[in-house]
């Protein structure tokens, strides 16, 4: 007896049971807005932190009497504004459009990761560096102020240790992040010709 003809495996594939559309347009809109709100909230937190720094050191312009501390505060404010502008234009996430072909998507995704990696590797240049002159002047000014204060001694070194520790920590964390990105970049490169 002749065997029946085998169906194309594509027929089996296409005959899989599927559920009715699991989400409505309204749910999609709500979820998309939730995600957008989370991004906006994160941005607002970053800008609020910058405003706090500017407001804090802005008040020091009046509070502290020495020119060094005032100049230091001014430079810290300038450095903070520089960082915010840099993040906004150079280091913020730049989503890759999803409607391009897969290989183009992988290629552009890799470029985006490389851009972020460069930002992490050069964090000393655009994030830490701009704050150093202001912090140095402010610290020297504070040190001189305390030298003239009664019974003060030299209490600045713990402050310096904390500041240097935070700077080194931020720098190392960013280098670690850059190394993790390299792994993803290598994986994506393995898919590209």
């Amino acid at each position, binding site marked *: 007896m002749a*065997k*029946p*003809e*085998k*169906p194309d*495996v*594509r027929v*089996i*594939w*296409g*005959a*899989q049971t*599927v*559920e009715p*559309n*699991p*989400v409505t*347009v309204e749910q*999609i*809109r709500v*979820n*998309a807005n939730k*995600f957008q709100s989370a991004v906006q909230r994160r941005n607002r937190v970053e800008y609020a932190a910058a405003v706090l720094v500017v407001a804090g050191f802005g008040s020091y312009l009046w509070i502290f009497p020495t020119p060094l501390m005032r100049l230091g505060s001014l430079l810290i404010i300038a450095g903070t504004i520089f960082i915010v502008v840099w993040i906004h234009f150079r280091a913020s996430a730049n989503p*890759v*459009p*999803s*409607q*391009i*072909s*897969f*290989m*183009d*998507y*992988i290629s552009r*995704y890799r470029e985006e990761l490389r851009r972020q990696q460069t930002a992490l590797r050069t964090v000393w240049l655009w994030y830490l560096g701009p704050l150093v002159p202001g912090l140095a002047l402010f610290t020297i000014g504070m040190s001189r102020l305390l030298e003239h204060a009664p019974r003060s001694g030299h209490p600045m070194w713990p402050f310096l240790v904390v500041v240097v520790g935070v700077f080194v920590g931020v720098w190392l964390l960013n280098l670690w992040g850059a190394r993790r990105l390299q*792994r*993803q970049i290598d*994986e*994506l490169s*393995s*898919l590209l010709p």
Partner: protein
Amino acid sequence: MKQDDRYTQAVASFGPALQRLVRGFEADADQRRDLLQDIHIELWRSMRVFEEQCSLRTWVYRVAHNVRASYVMRSRRLNFAAYVCLDELADMPDRDNPELIASDQQALAWLHQTLQRLKPPDAQVMGLYLEDIGAGEIAEIVGISPGAVATKIHRIKTILARMFQNGGPADGQA
């Protein structure tokens, strides 16, 4: 046409295909649900800029495959060295005994496992071939030349023929 209308039209036409795609690429049920939701959100978003630059089907599949790639990268499961390409799959001994592929369920299970172990471009070509999409459109979706797609489809057909040679569901063994 408004964004919502375009999205509704896309889901009405290709919603079942998206479910099959997600089922084929993700073994874990929770991840399948999350991925499908991510695809729907991105598809809805992308419809703001859809001006028939390509067919709606090409657009939908591009979005789905790219969201899936992004999902894998974000979930830190990125290790393409663990995946195999079609050539390697074709050269592998048949550890999955073709005699055992005797029902539609077993055939689907094998297809899902195979899609999940193939490197992304090869898996995509196979998934799109299973959806009965032509080589030209697959090339547009994946972003490789039609010649390369034709070569991969030839490989896929060879592998499928080998795997289903003895135990195809219509052989009456199911």
